[in-house]
């Protein structure tokens, strides 16, 4: 079979073909226009999107918040990074009106700290599985339960198949799954809709306010790699950019 010479001409890249940089910028523009959220785009805000309560953090998320029925990964780059505290603050905001399930295999969650981050303890259930098998079972069951708002768990090891099962479980319910992962998880594949990397930043010696750098390293169906610096006031619990 011989191709027609005219058709070959059409495959040639002409001088008017846009460069990769131009394509990327136009893609960015289109995404910004069609991003679901209260401020941008023609789409109306969906009731399935819940704000994190931190405006700066919402801005780097593709849906301007966390989507119900999805998983989000919070990667702590090092011990003491503040990833769990940040996730807990967000969980307290997302929890309102529903139940928060804290899966705590090492039995180390500290109730006064959780309460000070705004979590309603009366609506919180602490689940303490003995094995990793039980832990994953608890996560699946909790994510599928329609009355649960948030499921938060620290998971060090997770195979792709296990992750996929959790994603399917989350998709069949309305809970937001928040998985706290160690730094090594960055090199592993993920089934989460959003992957956030939380790194500590040195605070000002005068204020001693907690400073964090949050980077959206992956967002499903959207270009990621957006970063925000946050500063938290211990007294008020408010976040500043």
């Amino acid at each position, binding site marked *: 079979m011989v191709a027609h010479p005219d058709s070959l001409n059409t495959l040639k890249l002409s001088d008017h073909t846009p460069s990769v940089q131009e394509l990327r910028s136009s893609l960015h523009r289109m995404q910004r226009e069609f991003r679901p959220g209260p401020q941008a785009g023609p789409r109306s805000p969906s009731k399935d999107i819940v704000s994190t309560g931190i405006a700066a953090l919402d801005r780097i998320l593709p849906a301007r918040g966390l989507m119900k029925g999805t998983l989000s990964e919070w990667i702590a780059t090092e011990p003491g990074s503040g*990833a769990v505290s940040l996730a807990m603050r967000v969980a307290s905001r997302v929890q309102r009106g*529903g139940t928060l399930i804290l899966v705590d295999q090492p039995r180390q969650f500290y109730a006064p700290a959780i309460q000070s981050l705004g979590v309603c303890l009366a609506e919180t259930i602490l689940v303490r599985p003995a094995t990793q098998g039980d832990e994953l079972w*608890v996560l699946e069951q909790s994510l599928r339960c329609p009355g*649960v708002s948030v499921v938060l768990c620290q998971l060090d090891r997770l195979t792709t198949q296990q992750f996929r099962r959790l994603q399917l479980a989350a998709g069949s319910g309305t809970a937001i799954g928040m998985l706290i992962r160690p730094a090594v998880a960055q090199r592993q594949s993920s089934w989460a809709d959003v992957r956030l990397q939380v790194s500590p930043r040195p605070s000002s010696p005068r204020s001693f306010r907690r400073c964090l750098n949050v980077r959206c390293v992956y967002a499903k169906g959207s270009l990621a790699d957006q970063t925000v610096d946050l500063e938290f006031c211990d007294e008020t619990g408010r976040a500043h950019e």
Partner: protein
Amino acid sequence: MSDRVSDTSTPALKHESDECSARMLCVWLPNFPIQRLRCRHFSEACVLYANSGSRTLIVAASNEARLHGIRSGMSLAEAQALHDSAVFLPHDADADATELKLLAELCYRYSPLIGLELSDDAHCLLLDISGCAHLFGGESGLARRLVVDLAERGYFAHVAVARTIGAAWAIARYGHCTGSDRRLKSLPVQALRIPNKLVSQLREFDLQTIGQLDALPKNSLPSRFGKILNERLGQIFGHRPELLVLLPRLEPASAEWTTDEAICHPKAIQHVCTELLAELLETLKTRSEGLLGLTLRLGNGTSVPAVLKIGLARPTDSLKHILNVVQLKLDTTTIPEWIHSIHFEASDVSPLQVQQRSLFSSQEPIANAGSVGKLADRLIARLGNDGVVHPRVLPEAVPEQASSVSLLSEPFTEMARSVGLQISSARPVFLRRPETIQVTAIAKDGTPLHFGWSGRCYQIACCTTVERIATAWWQESGSVQRDYYQAETQSGARFWLFRDRTGEWFLHGVFE
């Protein structure tokens, strides 16, 4: 069918009773034997008879039969002559008593103390509602809800609340008013719960009302009418005590299956469990109760049976849900390989909760409220009671003592929610066991400069001022004196360190 509620909580009566006085509620079910049959969808004219010595007498008659002139105490032949197309049935007094006890079970949601009237007319329930009424919006609210509950089961009832059993009974049977002494005195003498023979004697003396009797000299009454008259008069006005004879609770509902041919296949066990649980729930349904705790005994015919205890977060009558929980429990517990008998017992029951409907939102919250309870049941069945808890804060200064947990079955009270100490400084989300670390400090009691932990050396860039936590020497757990620091490394990571009174350093938490 309308019910009358004699609400005696009028201002006049409230004024009489102080906070400590008892409040008694009487439920009278008029023509109860006929009502019981009507509940079984029996709608024709009905007459009940019973043998009395050599005669057969009418015990109760429905309103349709009464229209034809049939009355209680009439002979059966006479009643048949008056209305032969009516249904004539033998009276089953035992069935009446059983049904009355079932209704008493229903009333336990209103009061823990329930008794039966022991006089001739036994179709009454007596409830001691002292201290219970405020839970239902007052005595009037309680009485109305009770009447509605009974009406839902097809029973017409008269309910009255008063200071004494006698007054409550009298008003429920004969009163249309409040329970003040003046009103009680206007009631007929039958309201004193005295035998019919004595009522006839009093009428011979033209003593028609309680007031007329009360006006007579009390010491002259026993010689003429016996001791009971003075006793009843004293009881109705509260001058004499009267004990409420409590009704024993029904035996816990149970279902059992035994066989000579032992079973071992999980499908067979599951099938038997399904049958038994369905039977158990059917029994509870007649009591309007839901299952809150279940004991399962699996016997292998030789040794002691394996006992599994299952607790549920909220009362339920859902067979599917209970089966699910039982199956999870069986999966995670070692049970005998060969099973000869399976025995279920409802170890804990509670009235089924009515779910509140939201005014504006959709049906979603109603479904959600139950779904979390069911989730908790499944989690408890697999992880045990200790594995599924509520976090709690305690008013303790020592950090590891300030955090606790409570079982889901325990009510999470307002007190438990707000008893934590007001602490301005931050606490780590994860609290570890104090772990000894090597710290270099400026001085012996100075701030730390760097420390080693988990095979790494951390340089401290800045830290908070010292927070001293000390407890008194007389405390049972021993005296504690610690100087805490929130230390921030050069990268911004934060740790919670403390130095004890010996100068040794510990890592107590990581601000993850």
